[in-house]
């Protein structure tokens, strides 16, 4: 109740202010209520069903800004009932023509490509919060952010994040042979040396936009470390349990992106050189790699098409081979078991990091068309990973029923070769969704 009162006070404050409806000073209060259903996966009839009440408050003054968004959620998520309050955005700051300083919970998205942005490492995601809009998965970090504008065309964005926050991917829901156990999180100690620092020099010049960026810290897109192997010798048929912990790794990323319009086309691109240390020794750390995306966007006969090539090059890649037992005596078998577990863990982490081969290649195509004067939008995203032979299809139909009421219907279909990530996630995350959202 106390939490609710604080949230309500925070959000209602703009209403108490003298609102001026212009560009320089205004207070806004808005939100939405949403009922969302996703189900019909192989493992879950109802995988993700929830009701949501989102409240947003915003004030933009001459030199003052604050922004808050709070979610009240209740529902059923992969077999568990829940009720929770989540603070999404909640930040305040000083703003001016030259300089902004913002502090609090913020969501930051960097990069100029869509859906696959190798330079976008700031905000974590909850990959299992399944809705009609993939950007609902973004989660805020507590951060301090400075933006300095050299002129209207060039700005510098600097971010400091004191506390690390992991992205959420629920491998505990996947059927991975029964011996693997997920759920534990290992996070870096709270210290200044473990804080994240990032900067982006952004250019929006006539005819082209581009940026250079730098990230130093723990990647929200973490790996899995082997924590131990348990064997219950009192069980009738003793089987080992392999405990995995979600473990982040430190990296530096030097990135660049661009967007260049040419007639009715737009060419976009991003590249990020990820520098990591210890990837040969630690199972949960990826090897240094160059990730890149090249995209082209164009409207054909009313259909907006975005075609993207997504690649990754790992120069120090070395193939790994399945260990073979050296003999049948207990010591050799124990050694073999340890090597096998390490091999499987490394293989699994390489799948997560897209480092199954020295060069990894994938394509994505998004087609979108609006009908009936923008009240109905049909969208289809297809993704195929040539290296891992995984395939994703996401059709969606949105309908604006009235000014404040919209409905979305669609589905997620993922499939891949045996023991690929999509092979594991498909039976859990595939399904149909239906969503009704009223905004105010």
């Amino acid at each position, binding site marked *: 109740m106390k939490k609710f009162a604080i949230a309500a006070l925070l959000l209602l404050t703009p209403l108490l202010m003298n609102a001026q409806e212009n*560009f320089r000073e205004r207070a806004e209060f808005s939100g939405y209520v949403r009922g969302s259903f996703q189900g019909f996966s192989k493992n879950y009839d109802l995988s993700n069903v929830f009701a949501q009440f989102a409240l947003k408050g915003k004030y933009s003054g001459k030199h003052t800004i604050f922004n808050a968004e709070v979610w009240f959620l209740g529902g059923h998520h992969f077999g568990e009932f829940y009720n929770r309050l989540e603070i999404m955005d909640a930040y305040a700051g000083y703003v001016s*023509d030259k300089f902004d300083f913002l502090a609090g919970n913020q969501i930051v998205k960097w990069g100029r490509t869509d859906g696959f942005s190798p330079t976008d490492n700031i905000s974590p995601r909850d990959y299992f919060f399944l809705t009609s809009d993939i950007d609902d998965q973004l989660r805020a970090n507590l951060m301090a952010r400075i*933006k300095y504008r050299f002129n209207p065309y060039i700005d510098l964005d600097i971010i400091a994040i004191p506390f690390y926050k992991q992205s959420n991917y629920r491998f505990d829901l996947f059927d991975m042979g029964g011996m693997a156990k997920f759920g534990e999180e290992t996070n870096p100690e709270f210290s200044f040396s473990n804080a994240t620092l990032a900067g982006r020099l*952004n250019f929006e010049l006539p005819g082209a936009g581009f940026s250079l960026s730098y990230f130093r810290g723990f990647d929200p897109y973490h790996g899995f470390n082997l924590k131990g192997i348990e064997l219950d010798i009192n069980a009738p048929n003793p089987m080992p349990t392999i405990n995995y912990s979600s473990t982040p790794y430190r990296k530096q990323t030097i990135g660049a992106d661009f967007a260049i319009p040419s*007639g009715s086309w737009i060419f976009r691109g991003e590249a990020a050189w990820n520098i990591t240390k210890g990837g040969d020794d630690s199972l949960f750390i990826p090897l240094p790699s160059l990730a890149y995306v090249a995209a082209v966007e164009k409207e054909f006969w009313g259909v907006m098409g975005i075609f993207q090539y997504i690649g990754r090059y790992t120069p120090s890649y070395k193939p790994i081979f399945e260990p073979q037992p050296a003999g049948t005596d207990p010591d050799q078998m124990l050694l073999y078991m340890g090597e096998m577990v390490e091999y499987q863990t490394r293989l699994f982490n390489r799948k997560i990091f897209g480092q199954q081969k020295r060069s990894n290649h994938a394509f994505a195509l998004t087609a979108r068309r609006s009908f009936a*004067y923008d009240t109905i939008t049909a969208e289809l995203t297809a993704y195929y990973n040539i290296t891992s032979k995984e395939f994703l299809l996401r059709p969606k139909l949105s309908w*604006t029923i009235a000014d*404040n009421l919209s409905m979305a219907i669609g589905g997620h279909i993922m499939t891949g070769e045996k023991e690929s990530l999509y092979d594991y996630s498909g039976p859990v995350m595939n399904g149909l969704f239906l969503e009704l959202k009223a905004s105010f």
Partner: protein
Amino acid sequence: MKRVFKYFNTLTIILVTSSFAASQNPREISKKSADAIALGSMEMTTTLKIFDAKGNARSRTLNMASRKFGDVTKMMMKFTDPADVKGTSILIYDYEERADEMWIYMPALKKTRRVVSNERGKNFMGSEFTNADMSKPNIEDFDYKIISSENINGRACHVIEATPVSQESLQSNGFSKKVSYIDKENYLCYKIEYYDLKGKILKTQTIGDYRPVEGGSYFYYEMEMKNEQNGRKSVLKTEKFKPQSQMTEAQFSPSNLDK
């Protein structure tokens, strides 16, 4: 003598007609008409109502601002209502000599995207208006001719036909010709008829409630676009208008769209 008088009369008519034609260049009239409207530097709040053929209405409210910096007019639009589009912002750099540039910020997307800006004929926010109707017409995109004179609301008007000069201009604007009714005295345009690519009338735009603003120009407080083929119409009503925007160039930058 009678014959001399007849020749004199003919000569007078020719001289008057040619001097009228020389002073009434249709391109110049169209340019004066475009310049009569204070779109270069202003701030306003406007409501867009979209009516379907049955009369059901949808509504959008937006704040707009524009200001000229060097050779570029920068225009920003921020939607304030309804809630599902609230916070969506569009920034347009309208260059005199080169293709326009456009950025869009959508709150759900959490980032500003550069988008293609050359589709002037595309519907504006699902209405009967097009992107082109939101900014000054590109005079160079058309050839002009005066086809007649007519009275509109008791005002004597030139009736000027404008046809796209090139295939690119035709495709970009989305119509084969437009016929504008422009006041002979103050150059205000009261009506424009748009014809589709097959030459059939497509839409009729009526512009009214002109009010004088500082600097001797005018601004229209009401504009209606009726689709003659499907019965839909959209009405743009200006609620607040302020000429001479004081917004700084930094406020018209893409990095400012999310504020």
